[in-house]
């Protein structure tokens, strides 16, 4: 049985509630994680970790929307962590191996969309361009594209609702510009 912060056991009703939340939001959390990392195993690990944190340290949410926002925010943060680690590892490897400079993601030639399409790797191109956006833009765009309203995005990110449109506009313009470079 789960324990609360004082160490007392949770009730079976609370466990059932947790199961219901898990079942309801796991697909969304997994989808967000997968969009970031692009690998099923890593996405599943992130999704599991999100719910593990929710289980042990549940947010002080007063409604369902806040819980959903919390779950998505943690999923995105963990996804971003994976990308940062990848980038750090990649940078180190690149210093050691000049061959790595021809990597698919960073080579200007390989970033040509048509080549990616031909290689069946358009998703990787999209992911690499997306990862280059400022994180604030990434998060807003990711949440909006998965169906979040402006109010929910503001709830999840802390960005004022009146600024969401501007962030999205800049994100989309930057994304499209990079995609066509």
């Amino acid at each position, binding site marked *: 049985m789960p324990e609360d912060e004082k160490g007392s056991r949770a009730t079976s009703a609370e*466990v059932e509630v947790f199961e219901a939340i898990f079942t309801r939001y796991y697909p969304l959390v997994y989808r967000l994680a997968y969009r970031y990392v692009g690998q*099923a195993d890593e996405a599943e690990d992130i999704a599991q970790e999100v719910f593990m944190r929710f289980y*042990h340290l549940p947010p002080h949410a*007063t409604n369902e929307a806040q819980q959903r926002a919390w779950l998505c925010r943690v999923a995105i943060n963990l996804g971003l962590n994976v990308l940062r680690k990848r980038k750090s590892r990649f940078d180190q490897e690149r210093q050691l191996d000049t061959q790595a400079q021809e990597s698919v993601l960073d080579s200007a030639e390989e970033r040509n969309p048509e080549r990616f399409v031909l290689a069946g790797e358009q998703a990787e191109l*999209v992911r690499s361009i997306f990862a280059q956006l400022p994180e604030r833009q990434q998060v807003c765009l990711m949440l909006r594209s998965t169906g979040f309203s402006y109010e929910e995005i503001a709830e999840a990110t802390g960005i004022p609702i009146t600024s969401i449109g501007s962030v999205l*506009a800049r994100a989309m313009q930057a994304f499209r510009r990079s995609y066509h470079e």
Partner: protein
Amino acid sequence: MNEQQQVRKNNGCLEAGQLIAWLDGALSQQEANEVMVHLATCARCTAEARELRSESRRVFDLLSRLDPSPTAHAGPAAAFARFQMRLYAQNTAARLPDANGNIDTRALPLSSTERDGSLLMPVRPSARRHRPGALIQTLVAALVIAALLGSTLLLLRSRVPSPGSHPKQTPSIGPVGTPVKISIQAGGLAMTMQITSGPYFLSEMLAADLTLTNHSQTTYLLEGTWDNPGVIDDHCHLPLKVVMTGGDSPRDTGLEHNLAAAISCYGTPGTTQLLPNQTITIRQYVALTSSGHVTLKAQGTFQKPTLGQDGVIHIVSTTGPFDGHWPSLQISVQAQVPSQRLISLQAQPAQVIVDAPPDARGRLLYLSAYDCVDARSSQHGGGGYWINLATMVIEKPQCGFSVTNGTPTPATFVRWVYVVGAPGYSIVSGTYP
């Protein structure tokens, strides 16, 4: 001043953020009206709004390519079993890393199945190492669980209500043919209505493609919202729609009822601009819920801005070039569904299994709505619009919960209405419980 309040550039035009928020329906009615009034007189902003609309569509389309395939991962139930496995492993280790990666030395919690003494976990499909003994134990346990679940499902299945009306079947007909197309022109506007070809039958889903092009130099306003990223068809607030009239018995009243329950309209319709040389294209799905002679007619409401007595500019309905001339089509609807066009649903305790002819499987569409209540409020879920159905299994929606004074309160599931169909094939629906 925040980013969006600074809505005007130095040249008096609207900021892209304001336009995006307007396109996304995120502005208040007053703000939206101000934007529309400006757009009615500013070609530059109008062009930018059009570009932003198509840009957001393209970006969302590209981002959707990052999504996992529906079959690329296990469902929530299997994931939850893995979660329990992980929890169990942490329990065994008696150490738990917290959100910051630190080790929590408190005694660790058990999941509900652990509490019941029946921790049985499936094998993780990824490259995790398992001891042979543990693997055998897990497999044996999984078989036991599968047997228990199977018998439970069999027991529950007889108690689950079957999906709604299933029309009668007739002998087969050929594949879905070329759509029927009707075109009209008036007042510099050209419109076409294209409908799934016949022969038509009761409970059939038709795809209606409506195209309206402005060949004049006048900007027209239409009541309704055209753009909605990610949405195939918003029945509620489309600027153009197909309305079905006429028909006779037999009718599919069960389908009529479930469609009405699944489509909930919120908010105001908004206004769509049709600029010179602009074309808007809308796809709508129509359910033939009556047989006999049926008329399918395109409809729309033209609007204009007007200064009200309160000094505020309002958008009001007005006459339009197609008044009395909207394209229409009379069709004859047979009372029985051809067997090759039949889609059926099989209700399970927590999911619905879809059965459809092979040709229909890549074109299945799904519409649903569900209601939950808790002690303080009611919750309504479901899109109210058709979405592509990539799987043949539909999971029953789950209710959320509210937290009062730190205590989570689960909401009670009230009702789920689901509808599945494909253009040229039957539409079937059901409710739960």
